[in-house]
């Protein structure tokens, strides 16, 4: 079992071997409200740590999705594009956004563990 880490931009990341699965946190979905649109990075493209790697829109507004680590996009979750409401239903599991083949595992070091993230999310409840 690999540990799930969290970013200040409310993404979660789970590393298995050199492939990381990334999505947005339950806290993020609660702040956004009903998600009605999702856009994901293209398969085969490269994304840079803290760069934009997608968009989610709620009925209220659009928000960028950032990637907490750099890498090549090896898979994307078409299911959440077809039915974005799945993101609200199961954000930290089946409604993952994209998978990256990562370059530098040390980029994971600066990310938060669950306890730290929960504390962070509580303090930044806006």
């Amino acid at each position, binding site marked *: 079992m690999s540990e799930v880490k969290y970013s200040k931009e409310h993404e979660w990341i789970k590393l298995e071997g050199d492939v990381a699965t990334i999505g947005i946190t339950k806290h993020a979905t609660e702040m956004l409200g009903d998600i009605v649109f999702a856009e994901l990075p293209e398969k085969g493209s490269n994304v840079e740590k803290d760069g934009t790697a997608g968009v989610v829109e709620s009925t209220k507004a*659009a928000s960028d999705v950032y990637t907490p680590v750099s890498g090549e996009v090896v898979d994307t979750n078409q299911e959440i594009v077809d039915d974005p409401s799945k993101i609200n239903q199961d954000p930290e599991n089946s409604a993952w956004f994209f998978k990256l083949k990562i370059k530098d595992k040390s980029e994971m070091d600066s990310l938060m563990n669950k306890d730290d993230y929960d504390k962070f999310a509580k303090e930044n409840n806006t």
Partner: protein
Amino acid sequence: METKKTSLYQLHQDCNAKFVEFAGYQMPIQYSEGIVEEHKFTRNHSGIFDVSHMGQLFIYGGDELIRDLEKIFPLDLKNLKLNHSKYSFLMDKDAGIQDDLIITKIDEGFLIILNAACKDNDFKILKELLNEKYKMVLDENRSLIAIQGPKSSQILNDVVDGVKDLNFMSGNWFVFENQKVYITRSGYTGEDGFEISVPNNFADKLTRELIDKGSKLVGLGARDTLRLEAGLCLYGHDLDKNKTPVEANLKWAISKERISKGDFIGSDIIIKQLNDGVTKIRVGIKPEGRIIAREKTKIFNQSDVHIGEITSGTFGPSVNGPVAMGYVENEFSKKNTKVFLEVRGKKYAANICSLPFYKKSYVKGAN
């Protein structure tokens, strides 16, 4: 300035509302179920909206008032029957829309429902235009509660007997807890529904009774998605001082009889635009994919020329897709014209379409 609270503030809190500041008021944007559920519940059952921030302007007077108001509003007010309502606008001399409103003939004069952000300015303008001849009250002692959706007639009738006999766009005085409440059959969702003007002290009790009968509170978030699906304009977005009723495609609301005489504020421009046409006009816009084009999104034609701008855009839960409206150059306003919307630097295909996106189911009433 401190933000104001409506009489339902405590009830909103009890129902876990998320608040936003809107026109100087703390208003519920949504409750715990969220915008999509609240929207669907209104379409399928019945939703209650606190719209107490809106202005309730009572102007008292007789035939002279009717003549004076006809100089302001493009309506045939002398033939407006008692307790009947009309949609209209307050225009400046260039026919720019300063507010859109509903005016109802009541026994002693007129009741005008004004947008929250405009009401104080409207009051000033109207007072000046009417030379302070008439008693005018922008009533802060009454709340305004809307109940909308197919089950609303039965639910409200269980609480206030007799309302189900009202016709669409008409109203009357009713009694709730020995209080006089003025109820019109109208709304802003594309559904059958009512708006209830009730003394502040009784607004909470009335609303809780409606909830007990099966209706649910719905926030401003779903109010926006409902009205946009219904093709209805939001002042400050789809309408403003730089747009005329003809450009806004609202000429149906201007009395033909009054146009022939042309003696109201802005009538020169209105008549000119009706005869010569307009350069820009409000249209419905349906993106082809799932992309949401929001307010201020630029619209391009097939030759990549900038031809207009979105004024309202969101996801329509009942349409199950994105919906928008905006202004385009007149020659691109025909139904099914293909246009492109620039969202986050990319252009997405969309089509000009007729409004509403969601078919109305207004009830004519019992007659």
